[in-house]
């Protein structure tokens, strides 16, 4: 066991911290969010230069060969800085999926493009009536003449507004809700028959809904074997959830720091409000929640690359559930202790709070993941 970060990792962390304080303060972020893109194209270029966009890919594809702990450190800084760029979708979720499961030509083509900042991707795996269930796929994929024809709708595609390609799950056999029969396709944004409806999110980024009407892609657009894509998608979503855990930990720590500062400076009744024991103890609860959440994010990260799908899924669901709950405690408490200043747009506190809330609701909320984790306990006991 080893609980320390490597020197490279610490350097990476420091680089990002410097970047945020220099190029991504709260005012700049507000402008990026208000722009039509919803993030900073310049920052994206800088990420490419810093090597962030090639971090988790093997060296043979131009990557840095980083692991899930490296991603954890990056995502924690995405939380601290409330960075808006589509890093999670492009690099972690979709890039990681392509790295793990795409045919070699696709890897060879796309991973370097991602690394260079030239390509953005988004995962279109959820449908409205399915809530968080990835097997609920009503979108159909019909093979004919060496091509695939996709028809259906995909809902709330994260970072979907700016993506150049989508990874779209569609059903090539079986019925809605079946685990088998789901296939995954790379669909270019300009594909005929694809409608992209983009909109802002509660945290100021951009998402999109997709409508596919007989969208045709070639056989080379297929990722994984036909009808066998669900485990691939689940693995990518697990990894994305681990990354969201890290981002949430970054926010939790930022909120704690902001709240602690406020407790020390805000005066009421002639004294700093941090002298009131009820607030001290609540702040202590927030610190405990932060430490426990960090431990959970570590657990999630070290399982993110695991080959044991059941164990990986179990650990990451536990982490996402725990951090969803802890984030609620910290977010709500931070707002509460800031009083009126906690519920206005002006301070970053409310923006942290909103993003933290929405992390919980993304890719399965705390209840969903608690249920996942809980359901594994049945099997666990039968073997005791």
């Amino acid at each position, binding site marked *: 066991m080893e609980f320390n970060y490597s020197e490279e990792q610490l350097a990476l962390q420091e680089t990002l911290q410097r970047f945020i304080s220099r190029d991504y303060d709260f005012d700049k972020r507000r402008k990026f969010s208000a722009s039509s893109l919803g993030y900073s194209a310049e920052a994206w270029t800088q990420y490419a230069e810093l090597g962030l966009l090639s971090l988790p890919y093997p060296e043979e594809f131009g990557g840095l060969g980083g692991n899930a702990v490296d991603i954890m450190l990056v995502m924690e800084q995405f939380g601290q800085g409330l960075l808006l760029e589509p890093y999670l979708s492009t690099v972690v979720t979709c890039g990681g999926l392509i790295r793990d499961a795409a045919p070699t030509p696709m890897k060879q083509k796309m991973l370097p493009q991602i690394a260079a900042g030239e390509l953005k991707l988004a995962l279109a795996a959820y449908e409205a009536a*399915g809530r968080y269930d990835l097997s609920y796929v009503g979108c159909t994929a019909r093979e004919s003449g060496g091509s695939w024809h996709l028809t259906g709708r995909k809902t*709330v595609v994260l970072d979907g507004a700016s993506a150049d390609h989508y990874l779209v799950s569609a059903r090539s056999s079986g019925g809605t809700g079946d685990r088998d029969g789901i296939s995954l396709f790379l669909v270019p944004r300009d594909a005929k028959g694809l409608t992209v409806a983009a909109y802002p999110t509660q945290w100021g980024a951009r998402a999109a809904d997709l409508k596919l009407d007989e969208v045709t892609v070639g056989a080379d657009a297929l990722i994984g074997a036909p009808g066998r894509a669900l485990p691939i998608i689940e693995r990518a979503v697990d990894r994305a959830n681990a990354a969201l855990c890290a981002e949430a930990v970054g926010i939790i720590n930022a909120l704690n720091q902001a709240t602690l500062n406020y407790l020390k400076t805000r005066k009421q009744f002639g004294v700093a409000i941090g002298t009131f024991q009820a607030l001290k103890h609540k702040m202590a609860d927030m610190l405990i929640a932060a430490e426990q959440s960090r431990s959970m994010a570590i657990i999630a990260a070290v399982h993110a690359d695991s080959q044991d799908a059941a164990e990986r899924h179990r650990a990451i669901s536990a982490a996402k559930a725990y951090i969803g709950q802890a984030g609620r405690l910290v977010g709500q408490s931070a707002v*509460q202790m800031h009083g009126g200043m906690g519920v206005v747009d002006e301070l970053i506190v409310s923006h942290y709070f909103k993003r933290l809330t*929405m992390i919980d*609701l993304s890719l399965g909320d705390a209840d969903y993941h608690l249920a996942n984790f809980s359901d594994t306990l049945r099997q666990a006991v039968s073997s005791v």
Partner: protein
Amino acid sequence: MDLKYNPEEEKFRTEVRAFFDAELPTDIRTKLQLGRRISKEDMVRWQKILFRKGWGAVNWPKRFGGTGWDIVQQHIFEEERADACAPPQNPFSLKMLAPVMQTFGNAAQQEYFLPRILSGDDWWCQGYSEPGSGSDLASLRTSAVRQGDHYIVNGQKTWNTMGQYADWIFCLVRTSSEARPQQGISFLLIDMKSPGITVRPIIMLDGEHEINDIFFDNVKVPVQNLIGEENKGWTYAKFLLTHERSGNAGIGACKRALKKLKEIASEQTSNGRPLIEDSRFRDRIAQVEMELMALEITNLRVLSATAKAQGTLGPEVSVLKIKGSEIIQQLAELKMHALGHDALPYVREALEMGWAGNPLLSSHYRSYAPPISGQYFNQRKTTIYAGSTEIQKNIISQMILGL
């Protein structure tokens, strides 16, 4: 001890319900149902309808033009109002200023102002909090200096709700800084058209404009706009706060929100099945419903004990304020979670009535969805305003428990 409504009470409920059915304008009702923005005009229009019916002020005694209803009647009215999706009335004038004016104001003030509140002619807002005075209200600094037959007011008020609409503001101002902070405060009525007043919007975390900073720069206020005695304003302020809190249980609004939550959980699906079929989510609803069942009775017990003793409201209202605000927050949180992914989009235009587009391509993104996450964010204020939960617990421990 009997929790059943008696026949007169049932008859009263029927009458109230029939009135809402007949008189509440459909456009206003729809806005409330869907959580769209409502305008001042909507609220004034509704106040005037109530006024014509003689129901302009359900919490006032008859001698001031109120309905003179007992607490069970008021409870029924509020329940039916919320269920009918009628707007709440302006609380600042009807529930906060009016009890103060009726108790401590002079005849001239009562005769001039109260009818204009009833009729909807005057819109009032509240000038209590200041940037440095939130929980510690008595530390306020906005000054009023007597010059002849006027006060000259200087300073800043904040967290002012809907002041952008207001004709009048009632303010706590400092008229003396000699004694304890509480002893130099006065209660002033100020015409918002007075020269020297500036209203600056504050945008809330949900992106909406509902509160303001209000700046006073040598604003002249006639001395006859002083309520009660100079430097006795703290007494009136505490009286007002207690009344404010008593309304904060918000049973009617909570019941309406619970009903809405159940509807949403029945319409949203998880893996194709209604979310309410999921026992885990249903248990969370049940948990809040239990809390609300209890609070409805606690609320009526507190108010009826007060009415029976013909006393003024006491620190027990802090219990109602704490629980009521927690419940409305929990309901907002559950509504948001019921949406799942659909809680993520933020489509400002969709909050405006008449905006016809569906921002998402999914037919599943229903008309009730757009405001819900914002409501959750916005409702965090309820445990902060009108005395934060921490302040209410201080009151309980000091005034009820004697700690």
